[in-house]
């Protein structure tokens, strides 16, 4: 045992030195840690700061133009007389039409994939297809709409009409509704379906009377989010040729579906791209209106999600 104890003394001193180094290093390491946590916090704060700057800038520029005339006037060459009535009405038209198209089709497709053919090759193929579609730039949908809705279906849509625009945007947001429907249906416990089947109900009866009503809040949340995406889109509508100067409102009839249209994002784009500062203020005013609509829709979606989440 003597060799070991003789070696113990140099080992001890060595240990002391190392302990100091370790402690010093630990201080340094924890210092870096602290810096890093501040840096990460800074990243979040910076993103939110940009959001606040954006909102404040738009409010400062846009609030002065918000008056009754602004909401009831058509666009004009003279900034003082210009308003957003045709863009606002166009946005409402597009929103209603997109809702009418995407709700039945998206929910139907979601129910089909989740309730009728789960775990089939068809469901998997469509799932891959949908995730691919979600990655396609929105302007490409505009090119699709230009070919299919504006040109091929001209007899029905009359070209660059509000119907063509709504159909294009409906295709763009359809994947969002399908995915939301599937996720909402998936969260309904299967015991509910089993109970229905045990009573002799068909699959459709179970879905219609029990599963669908319970899944509805989740589905509606998805639909609202899809609609808020649709009314903020600009590029596809420019591509299908929505006009920027619309001095009339579409009729509230089937003929109205075929009339030319404009929407808030296109009006904003038009005003921002002009050199005069007066038009930039109008753009800021229109942005406020658009953002308020979007915020209201998102608040509704959050309310629905919280109200019915159990």
């Amino acid at each position, binding site marked *: 045992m003597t060799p070991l104890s003789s070696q113990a003394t140099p080992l001890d001193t060595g240990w002391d030195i190392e302990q100091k180094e370790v402690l010093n290093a630990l201080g340094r*390491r*924890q210092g870096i*840690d602290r810096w890093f946590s501040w840096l*990460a*916090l*800074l*990243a*979040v704060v*910076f*993103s*939110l700061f940009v*959001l606040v*700057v*954006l909102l404040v*800038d*738009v409010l400062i*520029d846009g609030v002065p133009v918000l008056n009754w005339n602004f909401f009831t006037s058509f666009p004009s060459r003279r900034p003082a007389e210009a308003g957003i009535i045709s863009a606002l009405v166009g946005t409402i038209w597009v929103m209603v039409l997109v809702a009418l198209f995407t709700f*039945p*089709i*998206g929910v*139907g*497709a979601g129910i*089909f*994939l989740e309730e*009728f053919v789960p775990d089939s090759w068809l469901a998997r*193929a*469509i799932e891959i*297809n949908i*995730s691919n*579609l979600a*990655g*396609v*730039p*929105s*302007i*490409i*949908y505009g*090119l*699709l709409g230009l070919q299919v809705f504006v*040109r091929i279906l001209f007899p029905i849509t009359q070209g660059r009409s509000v119907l063509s625009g709504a159909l294009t945007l409906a295709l763009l947001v*359809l994947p969002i509704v399908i995915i939301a429907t599937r996720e909402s249906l998936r969260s309904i416990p299967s015991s509910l379906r089993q109970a229905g089947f045990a009573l*002799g109900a*068909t*699959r*459709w009866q179970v879905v219609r009377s029990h599963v669908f009503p319970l899944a509805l809040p989740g589905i509606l949340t998805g639909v609202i989010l899809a609609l808020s995406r649709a009314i*903020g*889109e*600009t590029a596809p509508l*420019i*591509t299908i*040729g929505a006009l920027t100067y619309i001095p009339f409102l579409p009729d509230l009839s089937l003929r109205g579906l075929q009339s030319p249209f404009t929407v808030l*994002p296109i009006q904003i*784009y038009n005003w*921002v791209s002009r050199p005069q500062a007066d038009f930039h203020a109008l*753009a*800021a005013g229109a942005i406020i209106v*658009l*953002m308020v609509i*979007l915020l209201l829709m*998102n608040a509704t979606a959050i309310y629905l999600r919280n109200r019915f989440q159990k």
Partner: protein
Amino acid sequence: MTTNSLPPDPNNLWQPSRGLNKWVERAVIWLFGLFAIISVATTVGIVLSLLFETIEFFQVVSLWNFLTDRQWTPLFSNPQYGILVLLSATFLTSLIALLVAVPLGLLSAIYLSEYASPKLRKWLKPALEILAGVPTVVYGYFALLLVTPFLQLFIPQLGGFNALSAGIVMGIAITPLIASLSEDAIYAVPSALRDGSYALGLTKRETIFGVVLPAALSGIVASIILAVSRAVGETMIVALAAGLNPRLGLNPFVPVMTMTAYIVQVSLGDTPAGSIAFQSIFAVGMTLFLLTLIFNIISFWFVRKFRETYE
């Protein structure tokens, strides 16, 4: 009660109308199946509508010239269609956007999943979602009328339209995408891995860099590739703030024209269908579609190949 012991006559009992139910069931399956097919038809429609006009375009302009010409002058009497010009602008704006969005998005994701208390996280996530929900035309306004004048204070030679401010604002716009998807990936790393790392004496930051980020790497890389795909297809910010000057090169201070901005420019003009300018937007659209498709496939493949699974 003895009189009731006989079984009732089946013909007198109420019977569900099985025939009708079966018919409704079949009709619903067919109708909803048709709805589901619409999403496939959309993909087919996109490919076909791009393909037809692109083929027409390449009967006039050779593919070789399209890929190698160094000028984009569709309106000149001797038009040249060198896609490299538009590609260089798209590359430049996307690169600037990523230089902003990757550090911001990743750090935000790390903060949200590793540092923020659950209560704070509950507030911060929706706030970032608002940033993601701002329409891109609003970001365009912001880039052109606020960020460019601000940057001009420091860079006097910066043009009124430039790739720099468009790229920076686009980076802000895609930061929530990277933050949200990366946060999902980081959050999914089991805490046992972190505990093991702490037990070995590593600090929190060392654990994040040495253990958590490598474990979440596939999800993080996938989120970045998706962000690239988004940046390449982004339209309104670049159409408003980057300018409409087709120019080959990577100078961020001058106006450039991206692929998406070209499509917007032609669409705003009154270009007759069947003209070469009309066909050219489909050729550019096809290039854009293929580019984003490649990025999406790489992202999909990367997740599959490098995903770490934990039991």
